[in-house]
Every structure is written in structure tokens, then in C-alpha cells.
């Protein structure tokens, strides 16, 4: 039996808002009976104030899927659409007092249903991410197709890079071997297309062909913040003090942070604030700025910067 928190059990046994809103004007459907979980999120949004007046759900799935849905509807009620958009999967997890690592995808499903409902409200359709094939990373609900796409388009060669781009492998890490296999599979095809595979020696990050990341697919720029991140980097550059700019590692750090930031597809952003000796101060925005994701992001940056500059770098936020 999974080790659920009391809050999860409570929301499962006494689900809030498990009903149909007949005059809902935003409906988000994700998942399918084939996958074993499906969620219909129904919202009634005031078209003038864009306040979510009512939220309800119907869920087919395990205990934590039902609990996550219930929690999400409670979180949504009374919020404006703008506030709702900012809800992260981590916040759903936190609301429930945590989920077992195997069940993190339940909160991801809730977040996807919210995206779908918002898209529906704006008269758009939303392709749910359960179409992305074999689920490789259970912690973050990342499918094989998303990973293959990231490897293919960005010529990724290491698991670390895949984590950077897709989050896959960033949780418990048990899928790292599978990700390695997927990277190999994609490179077989890439090499057939005449792309030479870099040697198996650990590849320092500057060898990622920056030019390819600027030609990211529309899918990436639509979820991610490729364009805005670039603009932001430029803006930040103007504010950075002279001491930081004169740092011998300044160019490397800026480049690495930009690559990391471009690679975040969940709306997160990483920006340089200052460099003082071997201390790099960064600003984080989006899901990466709080909770478990923050720690993971900082740890990841530390490693990237240390590898990329050849110095022992400390990373902190302001």
C-alpha cells in the first residue's frame, strides 16, 4: 500500500467538489482509461472579472489522482484566472502534504487539466501530454516522445542534459538508465542523418550547439520561454554591476545560465544577479523558484557551472 499522507487520504475518502458543473465554461479533459487515469476539470469563470466562481472534477484513477483533483479544485475556487495559471504541480503536492514519488504524475495531471481548461475557456484545444508514449520518468510524468524530441532537436548526449530540458530523471533518478538507452536510440538515427556524435567522454556544456537551441520547435517556444528568456537576459545584463562583469568567469556563467534557462520548458527562468569570486547569485522564477525544484535547480546549476568554468562554484539565490 502506498504511504499516503492523512491529507491525501482525507481528500480521497471525502473528495471536495466531485460533481458536474452543468454550466461550466472551462472544461479540461486529460488522460484516458487506457492510461489508467483520466481527469475532467470543470470551472465556472466569471467572464468579466475572470474569477473562478466554482470548480469541480470527475476523476477515474487511483487514490492520489482523486485526492490531487480534489485539492486542485479547492485551490482554484475564488482565484482569478491569472492567479490560477501560476499554480504549480509542486503547490498541489504541498497542499496535500506530499505525494509518494511514484505518484507525482498525479499532480502533473491536475496541472495539465488546468492548462486544458484554460485553453478551453479561450476557445483553444489542448493536446494532452499522455500522447507522449511510454512513460519514462514517473516522478515528473515525462514520456518517451518528449525525451526523444528534446534529444533529437538539441543533440543532447547526456542524461543530465535531458533532465535540463525535460525534467525527466530529475526526481528519484531510477529512469536514468532508460534515458541513456533512449539517447543511444535517437543518436543511431541522428548519425544516419549525418550528425556526428560527440565522443563518449563527458561533454562539457559549451559543446551543446547553441545555434540549434535557437531553432527550437514551436512546441518548445510555446511551453517554454525561449524568446522571453533571451530578452530577460539582455535586460539583466544592463543591470549587472561592473564587479560582476569584470569577473573572469562572467562570459562562461552567462552562457551556461542562458542555456539552462532556455532549456527549462515549464515556464521557469534562471537569471544571473551577481558574481563575487566563486559565488554566483542567481534569480529564479516559476516552478524552479520554490520547494524541491528550487533545491534541485540550484544543485544542478552548481554542477553545471563547476563543470563549465573549471572552478568550484557556489550558487545561491538572493
Amino acid at each position, binding site marked *: 500500500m502506498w504511504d499516503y499522507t492523512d491529507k491525501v487520504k482525507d481528500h480521497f*475518502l471525502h473528495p471536495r467538489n466531485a460533481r458536474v*458543473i452543468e454550466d*461550466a465554461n472551462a472544461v479540461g479533459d486529460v488522460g484516458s*482509461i487506457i492510461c*489508467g487515469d483520466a481527469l475532467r476539470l470543470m470551472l465556472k469563470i466569471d467572464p468579466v472579472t475572470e474569477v473562478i466562481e466554482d470548480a469541480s472534477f470527475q476523476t477515474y484513477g487511483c*487514490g492520489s489522482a482523486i485526492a490531487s483533483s480534489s485539492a486542485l479544485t479547492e485551490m482554484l475556487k475564488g482565484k482569478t484566472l491569472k492567479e490560477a495559471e501560476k499554480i504549480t504541480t509542486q503547490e498541489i503536492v504541498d497542499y496535500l502534504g506530499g505525494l509518494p514519488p511514484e505518484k507525482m504524475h498525479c499532480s502533473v495531471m491536475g496541472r495539465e487539466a488546468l492548462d486544458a481548461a484554460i485553453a478551453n475557456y479561450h476557445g483553444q484545444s489542448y493536446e494532452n501530454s499522455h500522447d507522449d508514449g*511510454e*512513460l519514462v520518468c514517473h516522478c515528473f510524468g515525462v514520456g518517451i516522445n518528449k525525451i526523444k524530441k528534446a534529444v533529437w532537436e538539441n543533440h543532447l548526449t547526456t542524461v543530465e542534459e535531458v533532465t535540463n530540458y525535460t525534467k525527466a530523471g530529475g526526481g528519484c533518478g531510477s529512469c536514468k538508465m532508460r534515458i541513456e538507452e533512449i539517447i543511444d536510440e535517437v543518436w543511431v538515427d541522428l548519425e544516419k542523418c549525418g550528425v556526428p556524435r560527440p565522443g563518449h567522454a563527458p561533454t562539457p556544456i559549451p559543446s551543446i550547439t547553441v545555434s540549434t537551441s535557437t531553432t527550437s520547435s514551436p512546441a518548445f517556444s510555446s511551453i517554454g520561454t525561449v524568446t522571453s528568456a533571451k530578452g530577460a537576459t539582455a535586460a539583466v545584463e544592463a543591470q549587472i554591476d561592473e564587479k560582476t562583469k569584470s569577473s573572469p568567469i562572467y562570459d562562461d556563467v552567462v552562457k551556461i545560465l542562458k542555456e539552462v534557462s532556455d532549456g527549462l520548458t515549464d515556464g521557469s527562468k534562471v537569471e544571473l544577479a551577481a558574481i563575487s569570486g566563486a559565488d554566483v547569485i542567481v534569480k529564479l522564477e516559476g516552478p524552479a523558484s520554490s520547494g524541491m525544484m528550487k533545491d534541485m535547480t540550484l544543485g544542478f546549476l552548481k554542477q553545471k557551472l563547476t563543470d563549465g568554468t573549471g572552478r568550484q562554484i557556489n550558487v545561491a539565490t538572493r
Partner: protein
Amino acid sequence: MNTMDLGAGLGGIYLDNNATTQIDPKVVEAMLPYLNVYFGNASSQHGFGVPVEKAIERAREQVADFLGAEHPDEIIFTSCATESDNTALWSALWSQKGKTEIITTPVEHPAIMQTCDFLASHGATIKYLKVSGKGDIDLDEFESLLTPQTALASVMWANNETGNIYPVPELAEIAYKHGVMFHTDAVQAVSKIPVDLKNTKINMLSFSGHKIHAPKGIGVLYVRRGTRFIPFMKGGHQERGRRAGTENVPYIVGLGVACELAKKHLEDVNSRVRALRDKLQQGILSSIPECFVTGDESRRTDNTLNIAFKFVEGEAILLMLNEYGIAASSGSACSSDSLEPSHVMRAMNVPFSAAHGTIRFSLSRFTTEEDINKTLEVLPQIISTLRSMSPYWKEGKPQIQGLDHEFDADSKEVRA
């Protein structure tokens, strides 16, 4: 730790006996002297070893009698049925030069399936029999797969999820006719159906103690005299050099007693327990719409009922049952580590839409009528509560207008 808290509260109803069983108090009683007093090593020449050695031989006789083996020395004690299965597969390949094929089914326990996968990646050829929608196999197809290169045919005697009983004595006969060694994983069969090995052509048989009211950590591999055999565990002369490692004496003694008790209670399982299982099945089918029994109702173990509830997910059912102190198990993806439903349901082509909602109730001789009554009392409400939350359950419900998507509850799709 509160040792009285079973997780489901006191007086919990345990209907998950195909996963593991409670240890019979008589078994515990028989084991205690070998934990408290007789600590000797059976291999020792001095007095401490003698009673221990005798106890092991007594247990070996009890197990041989239970299985209907001709000779007690055909019984090898192992750590679990998984070890027995591994040993059987490896031994068959190692001991028969030039033979590289294994015939098996796609509904075996992972102890067979994953070992076969490993052996396949190291050069062995694994041939899988087809199973029907009810999980049955075809004897003619089995015979057609046997070749002079076949090292072993391994078919489980009964399936853990559906309870399906496979015609193992007949299969062994066919294999014998073709000079092919035959092994069966009988974990779910022993203690539920009569087993009389001396009147079959079965070469090897695996089972484990914890499914027959003995503790975990003890298993048996039966190896018929005259069967080519190479030990899997090397490093000692124990078990006549066929399984190295100091004997797990208390557990061996416990297993011996458990076998004796299982033989004695077989009739009870085949009559009273069967009647309870049938009552549970009838009760569920008559009170809950849109559910069906998986497997072959005419040929399954008397303690097992596997039932698929459409439109609801298995783990959610288990969690709610657990709230009432009722323990069962599910073939659903979410109740396991994998995100796909069980390989047994997939092999039987049960659509994913139903496979996710399968619940297995497995009874034992300790199951009472009261247990079944209580289960029948709460289950309909659980299913209807979960269905009322499910977007697939439309009965009597208003429909939202203007949806661009409909959930397809009858999808026959299976994912690759």
C-alpha cells in the same frame, strides 16, 4: 511499533492469500524449538547437529508425502520459489549441451518471465504459448513447439491472478514423449489441488512456504531422480550437493508441518472455501453492474476470484476496501511499480479499460463466512461511490454542453 496494528485495524479481513498467507500457529509452535534450543549445524559431527539433521529429514519426508514424490531425496530446500524457478531454468540449459530453447507461457510469474528475458538476452531462445481470452493454452500448440533443441518446457500449474489451472500432468506427458524436460511453478497450485508427482512425468516443481501458511524465506525445488541437474548455488555439500548453503532449519521444520497441515485441509479448501468463493462471486455479480470474472471459471483454484469492475480504477477500490479493513489486490497499473496493467491481463487481451479495474480476492482455510458477508456488504457502495466520481460513468447523469472531447469507456485499445 504497535505489533497489534495490522494496518487494516484489528479483525481485518484478509482476502489476499495468493500474495501471502498467515502463518498457522501450529507451524510457529513447531519452529520455536529450532529457534530457542536446537541451534546446531546439521553438518556437524557432534551431538548438537544430530537432532537438527533428523528434523530436516523429517520435514523432507513431510514435503515428499505432500507432493506425492516417490523419494524424499527428490526434495531440495531453497530460500523461495523464485530461487527454485531460477535454478530449474538455469540447470536445464547448463546440463543439456546443445539444447538452447525454453517453452513457456506469457502468464508466468516474473520469476520465470524475467529469468527467461535474461536468458534470451544471453543466447537462449524462448518460445511463448498463446493464451486465449480466458487464459487457457492449447495442448496441440504446445506439442508443436517442442523440438530436439528444447531444453525445458516450463508451465505454471495455477495462475496467481486468475487462479486458472493448467493441464500440467498432460503437458508433462507430452514433453516426456518428446524427450523434453518439464518444470512447473506450482506456487499457486499446491494446497489447493491434489498433487501426486510419482504418477506424473514432471521433472521439476517449485513452490514456496509462505503461500501455504508457512513463513516467508523457504521454498522447495522438487527434482525427480534421474533428471539432469546442475546446482544454482555452489559452495557446499548441503542438500546432496544440489543447493549449497547452511540449511534454514526452523523454516524447513515449519514448512514440513505446513505441508502436513495443507494435506489435511485440502478437502476443506475444495469444499467450504470453494463455496465461500462462489458466494462472493455470485454476490458481486448480482449486486454490482458492469463487472465480469476474468480467467476460466471452469478450471481455476477454489480460493481465487478475479473480477474486473469497469469505469473504476483498482487502486482506488483497494484503498476504500482497506478503510473497511478488507485486504485484496489489483492488477491495475497504479497498485504496482509499473504503469501498465498486469502482464496476465494483457496476455489474455483484457482491454486496458477493464484491466485497470481488476480486483483479486483470494481466500484461505482461515477465511470465514462472516468475512465474505462483510465484503459483500461494503463493496457495492464502494464501487458506486467511485463510479459517481468517474468521467466514464454516465448513467443518469446530465451531460455538459459543448464538449470537444468525450471519454471513451469502451476503448479496446492496448498500449504497446
